[in-house]
């Protein structure tokens, strides 16, 4: 069950990535990337690491996609300033494709749930040791990554303030 769900999630991630490659509009490309990243989160969960799957969903699928949507919404739509107006069009998804995606996700969730129930307690054993590694031998790299995130947040805030002036 778990293996079948893994293959389904992998196929879903590749499908959404291919869709993203051929999208012209930014909204549609961002939505396809969201689908691919959510499928990747499911893959990581099924690979035996629920913590990393959760982080992938929260950080990439949540935070990054929010930033992308804010960027797409706040960018100018005029042809002179923002380029091709079709790029900013919301676009629409054909109903059969949307229904197929929903059915696919439901089947994958059912398989993943069945697999998780059959192997409860087996996964996540490695996750418990990640904290000790992060703040042990890799403490310097962890601090550097935290500093990088802090500087990125500062760059965002200072950029907004400069624009406001």
């Amino acid at each position: 069950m778990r293996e079948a769900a893994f293959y389904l999630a992998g196929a879903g991630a590749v499908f959404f990535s291919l869709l993203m490659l051929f999208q012209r509009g930014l909204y549609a490309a961002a939505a396809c990337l969201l689908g691919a990243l959510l499928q990747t989160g499911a893959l990581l969960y099924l690979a035996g690491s629920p913590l990393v799957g959760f982080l992938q969903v929260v950080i990439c699928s949540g935070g990054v996609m929010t930033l992308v949507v804010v960027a797409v919404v706040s960018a100018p739509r005029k042809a002179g300033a923002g380029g091709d107006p079709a790029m900013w069009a919301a676009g629409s998804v054909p109903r059969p494709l949307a229904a197929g995606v929903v059915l696919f996700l439901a089947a994958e969730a059912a398989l993943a749930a069945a697999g998780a129930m059959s192997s409860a307690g087996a996964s996540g054993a490695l996750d418990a040791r990640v904290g000790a590694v992060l703040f042990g031998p890799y403490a310097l790299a962890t601090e550097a990554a935290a500093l990088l995130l802090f500087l990125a947040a500062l760059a965002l805030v200072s950029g907004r303030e400069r624009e406001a002036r």
Partner: protein
Amino acid sequence: MNPALQVGLALFFLGLACLALRGRLLVMLLGLELMAAGSVVILTWQAGVFGDPAGLAAVVLILAVAAAEAVVGLCLILRLHHAGRSGDAESLTALRE
């Protein structure tokens, strides 16, 4: 080849194709995210196979760096748009001149 390696490589090369074939800066940034996701899948699978938590620690650091890169990239792209310049990578030739 194990399934995680296949999926990870597929995601990585689709992200690379997005980066190489698309001219829009924002879509190129999305391609970079896809490449990071592909490498994360492979690293997580290998960490599970070898039972090594250092692999998962590397994954957590990659996620943090990818998030920081997305923030800085989007900030730069937004500033370009607000300055009235196109979001095409080909229009940014200041360093070439």
